């Protein structure tokens, strides 16, 4: 065994392993990545029904309904980014930090432009912190800009979201003064 043949073996092993790793990663990228979408993106171009996405926004105050189907608890609530609202169905326990008028992230699939089934609901934040994606989405929708201070308090969101989102549910989203970048992330492969 010379140094050269050993090096050849090493190179073969490395290429085989890293090649496999790269192939696995690429395959997983095409199927297992979860895109973040805002309610207005779902409303304008709903992602394919078999595609898991993360929907983030604020829970519309007064929109939360809890009921019981058999022994399974079912929660329904509206999520808005101030431009459009999507109603979310969720079977399970809402997290401790889930509040009306506060930010939420729902993971699941969109059935239509206004209907979403969540398999998981996340509200991992305290009274001041907002999930990064939701903050980004709010910034894009022009509801809040971090340059002009902290995010509006939950109380003011309550009134904002109730009026705006109810209006939006009735009439589809109107472009606002500071329009969101309309990239339909949800439908990308």
């Amino acid at each position: 065994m010379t140094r050269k043949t050993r090096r050849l073996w090493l190179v073969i092993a490395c290429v085989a392993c890293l090649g496999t790793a790269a192939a696995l990663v690429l395959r997983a990228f095409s199927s297992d990545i979860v895109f973040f979408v805002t309610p207005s993106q779902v409303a304008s171009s709903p992602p394919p029904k078999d595609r898991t996405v993360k929907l983030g926004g604020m829970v519309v105050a007064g929109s939360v309904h809890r009921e019981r189907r058999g022994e399974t608890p079912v929660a329904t609530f509206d999520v808005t980014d101030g431009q459009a609202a999507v109603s979310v169905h969720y079977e399970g326990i809402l997290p401790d930090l889930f509040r009306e008028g506060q930010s939420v992230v729902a993971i699941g699939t969109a059935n239509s432009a206004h209907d979403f089934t969540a398999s998981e609901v996340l509200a991992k934040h305290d009274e001041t912190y907002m999930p990064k994606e939701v903050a980004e989405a709010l910034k894009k929708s022009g509801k809040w800009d971090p340059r002009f201070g902290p995010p509006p308090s939950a109380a003011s969101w309550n009134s904002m979201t109730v009026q705006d989102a109810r209006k939006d549910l009735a009439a589809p989203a109107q472009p606002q003064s500071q329009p969101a970048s309309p990239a339909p992330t949800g439908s990308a492969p």
Partner: protein
Amino acid sequence: MLSPELGHYALALACVLAAVQGILPLIGAHRRDPRLMALAPGLAIGQLIGLVTAFACLIHAAVTDDFSVQNVAANSAVAKPLLYKITGVWGNHEGSILLWALILGLCGAAVAAFGRNLPSALRARVIAVLGLVATGFELFCLTTSDPFARVWPAPMDGQGMNPLLQDPGLAFHPPILYTGYVGFAVPFAFAIAALIEGRVDAAWGRWVRPWAVAAWCFLTCGIAMGSWWSYYVLGWGGYWFWDPVENASLIPWLTGTALIHSAIVVEKREALKIWTVLLAIGTFSFSLSGTFLVRSGILNSVHAFANDPARGVFILGLLGLVIGGSLALFAYRAPSLTAGGLFAPVSREGALVLNNILLCSLCAVVLTGTMYPPFMSLLFDRTISVGKPFFDATTIPLALPLFIFMGFGPMLPWKRAQLWPVLNRLWLAAGLTVVATLVAIRQLSGVLPVLCAALAVWVIVSSATDIATRIQLFRGPVAASLHRLRGLPRAIIGTAIAHTGVGITVLGLAGMSQAQHRIVEVPIGSTQSLAGYEWTLTDVHSEPGPNYTAMVATIEIRRNGHVVTVLHPSKRSFNMQNQTTTDVAIHTNLLSDLYGVLGDSHGTDGHMTYVLRLHYNPLAPWMWLGALVMAFGGALSLSDRRVRVGAPRRATSPSTQGIAS
């Protein structure tokens, strides 16, 4: 007295001592000046004394409720139990940086104390590199995140700590995890010292390996504790979220595992030298970026960066300096390291190389999955997330071959091996693996869980076979075998135990893939069945706690009519933070966990219904038990005679070979 000012002064003093420790011994080693080199141990111990004083002052401030210290006011409260007042010191940014620096100081002092048999130039350089790293982080602590900053006027009471963090598991998780992260600074310093010296040999491998193994043991325990905490505190029924903070600890663990294996090859055969040096640099670099980049949220969120630009810029600069500097030194000096011994592809060396390649591929995959979302959002302004499906699909197929080779790798002879005699010894292990596969096919659903379980059995049984062959069990009297077992190097027993630990963990993971759960909303008295158990909600009542009120449920679990256990999951409302936490109830019989969570209550008096989440988690405790076994194996190999007694001697010239047997 232990006033905050004294602490601040001690921290500044430690920083200055660290700077001197980083410069003078290096000059001394360069000029071969024994007086300058001899300064290193004293300076390292002086730095440690300064850091211990600073840390004691901060603990003192927290215990005595000195709310004029901003850090204490923001994170503590009078009503907090004493234990959490102490542990809360490292439960926040400033305190955890100080803890980090303290552990780094401890590492430097440990090298000074235990490194008496090192050549003086190497010891001086190692301690100096540790001093340079420490200087950077103590400066960071002093200039941007001062834990002793005062606030005026001092508030009457502190703001308290996040109730989720009031937990003994989380209290001790950070120090252990940090010891693991920071412990890899020592192999890093050895690597840098070797690059400066331009020499890596078997003795170097023998010196560096115990430090790497010790750090690895702590990191293993730290990761397991974190996972266990998220399992029993967060109450979501899972154990690993694949979120960036968790991955940040997994990545250095993977490269660290590769490092402790490749260092064996350096020690025994003087091969893979350059690669081992690179792994030592890489592991510490990943530890650093893991703790600081991900935890401070620089990459994850632009906000954390914008909130305190000074902090972000400082830490980025520091990371760039440490990582970039060491890699530049590596590029400059590595070619001067001489290549080592030859070996055939089928040999112990070959198996260890394969282990390294597979572990590094795994690391690359985890790194890609972790870094892809932040890069997508930075470069293309797209928010995506990568979760369990991605990591399952990419890591498991790469881990399976690792388990296969783990079985017979340790049995291969050095230099050149025949595969057949080794495999011939493993027919019993192979037979048991086939049996395990058949059992797994009956018990588990899914291809990957079955494969994982079968290979886990393979790893465990072949590790046992390795030891049994070495002590010639069943080939003679048992007493003779036991005598041989006592004579066997502890490193070999440690290897077998650590590999068994991996097998146990993988069995646990395979079992957990079969976890069942149900979410129900039921009135009191109703019975649910899950996984062959009947779960009855018998009572819900409220109970006052020290700084919360709790709603406690009673769930009776029966199997075939016999009461197995009674669970008391609860939901706590903390008035001060206006926050609720769920308190999970877990009953374990070591083969499976019965896990109950109480959710919201609905309805009015008399017609109340409660949401319950019931989990049946087979083999769940094995995941953490296996990690403990791994760490125990590592610790056992640290007690090996060669580490304790044998002061390795360096060969007189680099070309001399065969120092280690």
